[in-house]
């Protein structure tokens, strides 16, 4: 990971001037942080320069997303760098300027219709990340011959004000014969796009879980009770070790799934499914124990812990919950019958 040290340092420098804050309907994202990241070209990393991106590897984009996730940064960078940006380029659509936030939504109920001189969209796209904040949205919609990717600007679209548990915008966009650029997708491409979204959330979860562990270890070293630091009590050590086990498991599997994506593995959907399931499952343990060790102060908005735990509780259900992806994973692993289960487990990552 040493190759990404420089980009991580750059993002950390920018983040240090933008502390996370409590998101409210009036203050739904960190526009200043976005501008600083965009100015540094970081909102186009991993996207090829010839398509309007900043160039760089997938690993660089992942490092940026991880750093921002551990800083509870309220910007649509994961969507832009890991999901919508690559999908738009792969589908042959024109990438919007990287300074203008581009988000992603899964919107099967939205239909795309060709009307001679172009495409229009009709229906409601629900649970769209950063709805009302992002300037552009890429949607996975239903076209005349199956799945399609639609790209459209969001200005002027009616947006409902829904938010996740961390206050991040997750509203609905109402589309009524709304013009959009549309490209058809194969079933496989659509599956990989859903999986890519899940993997992006798994990457964010992994980074946030790691940061929550680090905060908790640090707090246990600083907070004294009964005349010694909390971290000297065996009961607390057992809890922190259990958290560490979850975090290491998530990191190992998420890294492997990112590798599968980078190498164009045929099993990338199952790898992403597994990463999302494992990361989601770790949230219960890590968030519960982090709050337990932090005690009452961690249960207040005064302390920073909630910036990440509320995101963890949200992200685990976004882009497909553990229930959804565990079924996809098991079905895929059993595709060659029950005797194919073990060979599949040793092949996926």
């Amino acid at each position: 990971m040493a190759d990404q040290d420089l980009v991580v340092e750059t993002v950390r420098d920018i983040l240090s001037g933008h502390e996370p804050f409590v998101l409210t309907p009036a203050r739904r994202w960190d526009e200043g942080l976005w501008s600083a990241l965009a100015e540094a070209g970081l909102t186009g990393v991993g996207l090829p320069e010839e398509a309007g991106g900043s160039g760089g590897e997938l690993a660089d984009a992942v490092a940026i997303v991880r750093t921002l996730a551990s800083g509870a940064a309220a910007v649509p960078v994961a969507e832009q760098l890991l999901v919508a940006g690559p999908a738009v380029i792969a589908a042959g659509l024109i990438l919007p300027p990287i300074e203008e936030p581009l988000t992603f939504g899964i919107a099967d109920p939205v239909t795309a219709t060709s009307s001679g001189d172009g495409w229009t969209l009709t229906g409601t796209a629900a649970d769209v990340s950063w709805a009302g904040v992002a300037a552009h949205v890429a949607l996975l919609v239903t076209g005349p011959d199956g799945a399609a990717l639609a790209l459209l600007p969001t200005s002027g679209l009616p947006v409902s004000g829904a938010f996740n548990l961390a206050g991040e915008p997750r509203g609905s966009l109402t589309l009524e014969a709304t013009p959009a650029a549309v490209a058809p997708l194969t079933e496989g491409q659509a599956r990989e796009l859903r999986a890519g979204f899940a993997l992006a959330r798994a990457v964010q979860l992994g980074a946030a879980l790691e940061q929550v562990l680090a905060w908790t270890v640090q707090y246990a070293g600083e907070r004294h009770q009964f005349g010694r630091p909390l971290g000297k009590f065996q009961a607390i050590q057992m809890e922190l070790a259990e958290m560490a086990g979850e975090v290491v498991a998530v990191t190992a599997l998420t890294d492997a799934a990112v590798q599968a994506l980078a190498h164009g593995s045929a099993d990338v959907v199952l790898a992403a499914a597994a990463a999302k399931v494992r990361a989601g499952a770790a949230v219960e343990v890590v968030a519960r124990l982090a709050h337990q060790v932090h005690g009452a102060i961690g249960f207040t908005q005064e302390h920073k812990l909630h910036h990440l735990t509320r995101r963890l509780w949200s992200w685990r259900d976004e882009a497909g919950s553990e229930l959804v992806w565990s079924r996809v994973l098991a079905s895929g692993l059993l595709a060659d019958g029950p005797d194919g289960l073990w060979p599949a487990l040793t092949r996926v990552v």
Partner: protein
Amino acid sequence: MSNSLVLAPAPRSDAAERVRAEVREFLADELAAGTFTTHVDTWLSGVDPSFSRKLGERGWLGMTWPKEYGGHERSAMERYAVTEELLAAGAPVAAHWIADRQSGPNLLTYGTEKQRQEILPRIVRGECYFVIGMSEPDSGSDLASIRTKAVRNGDGDWVVNGAKVWTSNAHESHYGIVLVRTSPSDPSNRHAGMSQLLIDLSLPGITVNPIRILDGGHHFNEVVFDDVVVPGDMLLGEEGNGWHQVTAELAFERSGPERFLSTYPLIAEFGRRVVDSGDPAQLAVLGRLSARVLALRQMSLRIAAALDRGELPNIPAALVKDVGTTFEADVIEEVRRVADVMPSLDSPDPLARALAEAQLHQPGFTLRGGTNEILRGIVARGLGLR
């Protein structure tokens, strides 16, 4: 996170995938020929010397060791692939398991040239089996409190008195690497004064008493040493360095796929049930279990890759074993929540049998090789808390 817990990702190994395919073909042939039947936790309970010799003939024992001692100079990644295939198939690997995993590498590091020349080629052929002599009746997790004593006699030989317990398959094994006290205990340095002896289990004065586990199986033993005279040249490594040597063994003992695949045959049978039933709740549980297996494989592979780099990652190994053995036990409850199965060792239903075997072996998973409480203490040290 603390660097002592994080290892670099394992590179994909083509050589490992090639040997994996060979092992898979071998296992399919053996299963078809009926030379073994699949069971849970076979690295404890599946003693079959003829099967061990077959593995030896194929070059799948002592894989990473130097050729001058009969080894095959292959990578830890290749050995990992072989061992995980054998475990997933529930093959009878217990006879040679400890010798191949741990005692051989220990001899390579600390053994004399004579010991290596005599013993390692026999392990490689699948003919020589080892036990670990660490725990005692009064010393479990607190290993530094052992009382088994070795004293030099006038001929320079060691006279050993004491008892070791949980010695897996001592009644089928040839040697033990036994941790003994060679100097009186020193309250100011509890880890001083211990040494490892390489003891031929056929020596006069050694008694092996069976200790039966919950399903009635005889795998564990108490090995009693009553004035056993061990030749002076059977000291392993340095006198007084026993604690350090034991600690070094643990990266091998704690990180392998046997720390999360002991109940894999139960998952495999559950997979059959899921295909038959098509039940979405069962499908989801299989997916969750599979995601945990996939994560544990990556964690364990990272350790194999670290061993190939010449590292001895004791703290990550403790963490893998904690997470992995917790998983092995969780499999039972996860399956029970969604499949209505009555566990029974003599049921005609293979899922019922696998569940019964897993249940009756389950308490051992999080005890053997260091309890999970001890392991979490080591992880806490890795987090900088101790």
